[in-house]
């Protein structure tokens, strides 16, 4: 899975019901969390499994690919 292009997640904060399911399913190490208890949105995810997008009950997680992976922190 690590051969995938890293992604930066975006969350539709209006739709998000703060349910925590995305954090529960996330295979990242500890701390890949936003200030609003969702998956992190301020740094790229290099696993890019997209399970958080699948589990979200209101489908409000989207992503953009980050091509210069290391450049953005």
């Amino acid at each position, binding site marked *: 899975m690590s051969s995938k292009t890293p992604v930066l997640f975006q969350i539709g904060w209006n739709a998000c019901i703060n349910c*925590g*399911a995305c954090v*529960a*399913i996330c295979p990242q190490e*500890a701390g890949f969390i936003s200030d609003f208890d969702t998956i992190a949105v301020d740094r790229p995810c290099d696993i890019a499994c997209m399970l958080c997008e699948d589990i979200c009950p209101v489908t409000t997680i989207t992503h953009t690919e980050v091509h210069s992976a290391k450049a953005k922190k």
Partner: protein
Amino acid sequence: MTFPEYDVVIIGSGPAGATTARILAGNGFQTLLVDKRQELGAPIQCSGAVSRHALEETGVPISTEYIQEAIYGFGIYNQEGRANFIDYRKLKPDEYGSEAGKKPLGFVVDRRRFDRFLLTQAERAGAETWLKTEGLGYSLLPNGKCEVRLRRFNEEIKVKARVLIGADGLQSQVGRWAGLRTHIKITELASCLQFVVDRVETDGLLEIITGHDWAPGGYAWVFPKGHGYAEIGLGVIPTLTDKNAQWHLDRFLKDSFFKDRFSDSRILEIQGGGVPLASPLRTQYADNLILVGDAARHVNPITGGGIHTALSGGIIAGKFLSQFLLSGEEPSKENLKGYQDAWLEKLGNKMWKLYEEKTAIFKLNDKAERDQKLFETMSSYFHPESEYKKI
């Protein structure tokens, strides 16, 4: 600088953490219970159904402070709407009912009030309780203790403890700090959404609706919520559907055999969460650390219910550590394994069995057969003679 020192620090004040804290503080141990929230239980990620037995067994006083409605039994529906009713008011009319001298089978509780109530019980037993305090990490110290990093409002604080308890729920980070394998499979986490609604009648029963058409991989529910309100929700396994929980709930409201019953409903609250229909964690301890409740995945893999198991897990953890801390032994992972052994004996082995039952159902490829099996399993699960009645 000297760091405050405790026997135990507990991260997360849900049913698991608050119960562990109540037992340990009650036995005289220096206990710090922290939670990052400003109001426990909120935003709500739970339907709040819990049996009276669960509360009594774990020493939680039954109180109107948190009860929203009394429950007397179950209605289990198949996909077409045929139901098995297990109403204790009819099965055991002398014992169960709303009349004086009779009792309910369980309750739907308001998690905001319930979790606050449990925190109060811990605090009154002598635990120090800090809200708005987030656990950030822990490290082992050479003297056999550990150091826990916390952020309380704007301040970063380090405290020392002999044992750290991760009771931080399904999103648990504490287990990840210790490198435990906490990862849950997408095929075993139900994506759940529920509405609290007005103008839907209920009758003191927890109603559970099975069937792939309504809730692929999970089930739908209608629970009484007090004041004439009801809770309507469902959980789906994302790999079994290309629609989200919201779409399925909308369809359940508009197109199911309950559509007339729901036609006048008004949504008052929207909640959700992930419910693991999974096995308990294989390893729930590490050096100076144990996990309890959802963090250890102490959740019933058939119903997804986790309040009872969180309360019971808290009692088991509290009792084990009360003895252990007196022994003066080092809280190494080898020594803390005893906690998990105690838990397996009391609850875990039954939960593994339930997990295997559940896995067998969802392995069936034929949809009709799977639906039928789930309906039967749910019906027998809630039956008065069920061997799992008490978990």
